[in-house]
Every structure is written in structure tokens, then in C-alpha cells.
């Protein structure tokens, strides 16, 4: 009997593959996509406004009407996407020279040290790092103390720029590492050829290195952008500002699941668009 079964699978390689994948694929589709589907279905369900109870399968578009008719949701989405883009740009601007130094200039020993230094913050808890930034940024904090001799005051914990700063700090390693890997992949012969043809440093960077780094930058930006767009703890703790995630969290914590679910369509759609864009830049080949 067993021989017959194995024989059958041997003759039908596609069935073998299907049987092997059935477990994990079933898990993903039922547990992961299933819960996502239930979450998104909440957006179309109505809710008792007094008791706050969701009424499943009582279909309505009220949540979307609420989000589209109140400009505050657009403001919040624009703020979140804007900060996520700023974080991505500033992380790239810092990552390029750091990664270039690591990949091209530093001695092997220094390179190893720098790699450890870049990845070290990832070992610390995310919350600890945010609270450390709070003690730096609060009015009487470290920064305020350092600049007080110049008659300046610490930024306090309400500035939106704090979120930009802290998110850039948090996600920087995720940008440096792909860019570093991308730089290592560029063969020396290309740079030599550029020099032979009279290309100085800047020209070589702009016309030889940078075009080849675009996939790596796009890969890093997926991390910095998606992690920033989904974050709701940093804006709350260092800026007192509302991001998309805060509105989703607030509405779910306040018992308004349909609005929370409807608003969660915004980051999902934005991320799908961003991933398609990144794919065109070749990000997935350099991950």
C-alpha cells in the first residue's frame, strides 16, 4: 500500500509539492489571512453607538463615510506618510556615507567594529530606546542642559520633529545594512574603469555607484517607510502627535472597531503602492 502511494507521488511531482506545501500554506491562509479578513470585514459592520457593540454581518459604509467626511483623517494620514518619507530620506542620507566608509574605506578590523556598532542598538528594547530619547528631549533633559549655556531650551515632548528624529534613529540600521551590502557587490573593476575614463570621485559616485545602489536603497526604504508608517508609540511618547496607528489604536481601544478597521485600509493601500514602486526599482533582487 505504502509503495503504491509513494509510487503515485513519484509519478506526480506537482502533487508531491502540493502535499508538502498544504500545511504551511493552510496555516498562512487560515490563521494569517483569515484574521486579516475578519479585521477588514469589521470596517463594513455597524455598531451600536451607545453600548459600543459591533453588530457582525450588519453591513454598512458608515465607517468609511465618517473617515471621508472628516478632513482630520486626511490630515493624520498625510502627516504619517510625510514623516515616514522624511525618515526614509534622512536615513538614506546618513546611511550612504556610513555604508560607503564601511564597505570601501575602513580596514577589515574597523569594518567589523562598525558593523557591530550599527547593529548593536537592535539588541536593546525598542521601548527602552524611546524612553532614553524622552529623557534627552524633555524640556529639562540632556539636550536642554547641553544647550542651556546658549540661552536655548530643550524641545520638550510635543514637537513633531521629535518623531522624525527618533524614528530615523530607530530604523537607521535597516537602511545601512542593505546599502552596505549593495556597495560591497559593486566590483572594483567598475570604479577603476570609471577612473580610467577620467571620472573623479563625485562623477563616479553619481554615475556609477548611485545607479547601482538604487535597488539597495529601495530595499532599505521598504523597512524605514513601512516601520515608520505603522509606528504609534514613538509619536505618542515623544511628540504627543497622532499618526495613523494612534487613530487605529484609539478607536479600537475606545470600542469603535469599524472606524479602526476602515482606517487601517489607508496604510495597507499605501504600502501595497509603495511595494509595487520598490519592485520596479529592483528592491526585491537585493534583499
Amino acid at each position, binding site marked *: 500500500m505504502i509503495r503504491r502511494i509513494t509510487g503515485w507521488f513519484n509519478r506526480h511531482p506537482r502533487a508531491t509539492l502540493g502535499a508538502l506545501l498544504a500545511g504551511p500554506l493552510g496555516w498562512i491562509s487560515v490563521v494569517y489571512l483569515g484574521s486579516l479578513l475578519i479585521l477588514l470585514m469589521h470596517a463594513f459592520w455597524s455598531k451600536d453607538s451607545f453600548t459600543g457593540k459591533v453588530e457582525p454581518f450588519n453591513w454598512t459604509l458608515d465607517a468609511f463615510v465618517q473617515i471621508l467626511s472628516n478632513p482630520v483623517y486626511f490630515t493624520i494620514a498625510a502627516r504619517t506618510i510625510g514623516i515616514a518619507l522624511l525618515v526614509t530620506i534622512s536615513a538614506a542620507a546618513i546611511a550612504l556615507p556610513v555604508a560607503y566608509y564601511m564597505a570601501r574605506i575602513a580596514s577589515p578590523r574597523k569594518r567589523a567594529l562598525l558593523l557591530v556598532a550599527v547593529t548593536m542598538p537592535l539588541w536593546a528594547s525598542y521601548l527602552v530606546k524611546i524612553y532614553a530619547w524622552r529623557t534627552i528631549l524633555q524640556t529639562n533633559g540632556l539636550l536642554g542642559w547641553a544647550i542651556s549655556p546658549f540661552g536655548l531650551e530643550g524641545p520638550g515632548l*510635543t514637537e513633531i520633529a521629535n518623531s522624525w528624529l527618533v524614528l530615523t534613529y530607530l530604523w537607521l540600521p535597516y537602511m545601512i545594512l542593505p546599502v552596505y551590502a549593495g556597495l560591497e557587490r559593486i566590483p572594483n573593476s567598475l570604479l577603476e574603469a570609471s577612473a580610467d575614463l577620467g571620472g573623479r570621485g563625485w562623477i563616479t559616485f553619481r554615475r556609477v555607484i548611485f545607479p547601482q545602489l538604487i535597488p539597495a536603497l529601495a530595499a532599505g526604504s521598504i523597512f524605514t517607510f513601512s516601520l515608520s508608517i505603522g509606528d504609534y508609540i514613538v509619536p505618542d511618547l515623544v511628540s504627543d502627535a497622532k499618526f495613523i496607528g494612534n487613530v487605529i489604536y484609539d478607536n479600537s481601544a475606545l470600542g469603535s472597531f469599524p472606524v479602526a478597521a476602515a482606517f487601517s485600509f489607508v496604510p495597507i493601500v499605501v504600502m501595497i503602492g509603495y511595494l509595487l514602486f520598490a519592485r520596479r526599482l529592483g528592491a526585491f533582487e537585493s534583499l
Partner: protein
Amino acid sequence: MKRFKGVTLLAVLALLVAACGGSTGESAAPSGDEKPAGWLEALGEAEGELNLIIWPGYAERGEYEGFNWVDPFEAETGCKVNVTAMTDSNNGVQLLQSGQYDGGSFSGDASVRLMTAGDVAPVNVDLLSNYAAVFSGLKNQAHNSKDGMPYGVPHGRGPNLLMWNTDVVTTAPTSWDAVWDGTAAVNGKISIYDSSIYIADAAIHLMAKQPELGIKNPYQLNEEQFAAAIDLLEKQRDLGVIYWGSYADQVAGFASGDLVIGTTWQFMANVLGGDTTAPKVETVMPEEGSTGWSDTWMMATKAANPNCMYLWMNHMMSAEANGQATVFFGEAATSVAACDYAETIAPGHCELTHASDEAYWETIWYWATPREDCDDADSATTCKTQDDWVEAWTTLRGN
């Protein structure tokens, strides 16, 4: 049509089962014939576990010297207590509806919604030996009973207070004007509760300042009154307000000097008073009156550990537990015995908190849920609903 038949059959069966259950008459439930969901006829064996939703500071086990009413409860009953703190009443409602809790301490803006939705069960107070001693002003109120049946037992009550840093605000304020009008010294350092219920505080300010709006109840606001309250809140926000979501946020802000004045609970003033490195703070109940709360321990209809929950409710009315808890939070105790016990820890506590002064409590607007029907007999008027309040708060905070 076939499927519908099946459903109908099931419904008929369910009705039959329900009818049979009702007619066995093995119990003398309060209305006589039918047991309400979650009704407990007699105390059974303690389940060994209890999962509670609490306001921070409502279940202490000795983290602060001299305040521990959870450990003795666990030792006595064998019910291990797990707690989750809510950030505001809306959050508490959502937590209870998740179905993972046996009960919690709810303020009026949560308790009425939970009773209406059937998420909490009526309480058989005959099983609670400490209930008889509770002040009658705390029994069978709109926020803790329905159709004449108690749905919980009181924990304590108190007003929302104005707190300030005495180094920065040198003349003691007596009115809420301090947080609505601002001054050069406090702008940018005003601390406000981050919850839609705070709209009621704006309404109380308007009751004093703009009587022509005709606000009778700060929780039931019509279109015009609501717009005026939101307008006031927007002006306040532009003074540079920092909103606190958890009490720890506010305590940290006052301790570091980033906050110097704001709305608070006596609890935070007590925590700051116990921190010798923090700036000195004082509190006052402003002359316009204030919002406040009267909290109730309620049991979830689907509680997994109802016996432990009953034991806990009884425990929280005992002189020792209620005395400690109300001193710790800075609120009024719920019985003469608890008051007497509280006096042994904090002399003067009962008078300070007006524990038995019913006239005082008339000036306090307990948190309540905004309702479309304005919670009055007049069917002609409509008011802004709970959802409107939450959305307005999102708009205020999101811009």
C-alpha cells in the same frame, strides 16, 4: 428555503429549552420567574483565579508602604488576582467586551453602557455580607442599578481636581479659568486628560461662563452647546496643552517640570507627594464644580470565576480594604466602618473627601454616557452621542 427551516427549528428548540429552564423554578430570582444571565443563587467554591479590569491604584499589593489589600484577599480566598488597568472608560468597556475578564471597577460612563448591553450581571447582594453597611446614597443609583436591581457594589467616589506646581503657580487658583485661559507661566505646560469625556469639563466651564447656552447637564449637549464646548477645547489646545493618557505620563511630566498645572485625580497628587525629588503640588476642587466619578465593581455576565468575583466585591466593601483603597486613591470611602478605618491611616480623610456629605456630591457631575435622547423625558430634543464625542475628540487631537 431549506436552510431557513433549519434555523427556525433551532430557534424553536432554543425557545423550548429556555422555557423549560425558566419553569423548573429551582430558584427564587429577584423578579420571581426567570433568572437573569449571570445571576448567582449561592456562593460556590472559589475558582482560584480572578481577572479584573481596574483603574490604576484600585488593586494594590504593597508597592507603596502600608497599602496592600490584594495579598490578604488572595491568602483568605485562594483567588489569584490578575489585573489590567484601563486608560479611560471607553477602554474599560472595550476590555470587558473582549470576554476575558470576570469584572472590573467601572465609572458611570462605562457602567450604564455595560448594563444596557447585558455585558454585566445583576448582583445578588444577599450573598455579600458587607453590602448592608454601605451608605444608602451609593445604593440603587442610575449608574449602578437597572430596573431596581443592583448591578454592582461601590468602590469609592471623588471629583476631578485642579493640580498645580506651587513653585510656578504661586497664587493658589480657585477656578478652572487657569486651564482654559492660560498664563505666560503655564502655557505649553498645561496637563489635560486625553479622553472624550473631558468635553464635559468644557461644558461645566460654559455653564458658569455662558449661561445663555442653557446647558443643564454637561454630558447631554445639543448641537449648539457641543459646538461651543469644542470651540473652547480648540482654544485651550492652542495654549499648548499636553494630554495625558495614563496617570504615569502625568506624574512623570509634573516630576520633570514639563507640566505645571492641569486636571488630575487626587491619586496623582498623592504619588507626587510621596516623591521627594518632585516639585511640590497642591490640588483644589474649583468653585465652578467639577466632573467626577462614582466607581462600581461589576461582574461580567460571562465571568469564568463568578465566586471569586463575589468574594472580591465583598472584600472591597470591607472596612480594611475600602479604607485603604480610598485613602490610597484619595477618594471617599463607602461606609461608616470604612471611613473609621481610613481615619486610622490618614486622620481627617473622611471630612476631606466628604464621604458622607450627600449635599457635597450634588455639586459633582459623575461621569455619564452622552445619549441621543439626552437622558431626559423630553423626546423633542436630541443630543450628541457617545460616537460623536469620540470622533470630536479624535478631530481635536488629530489636527
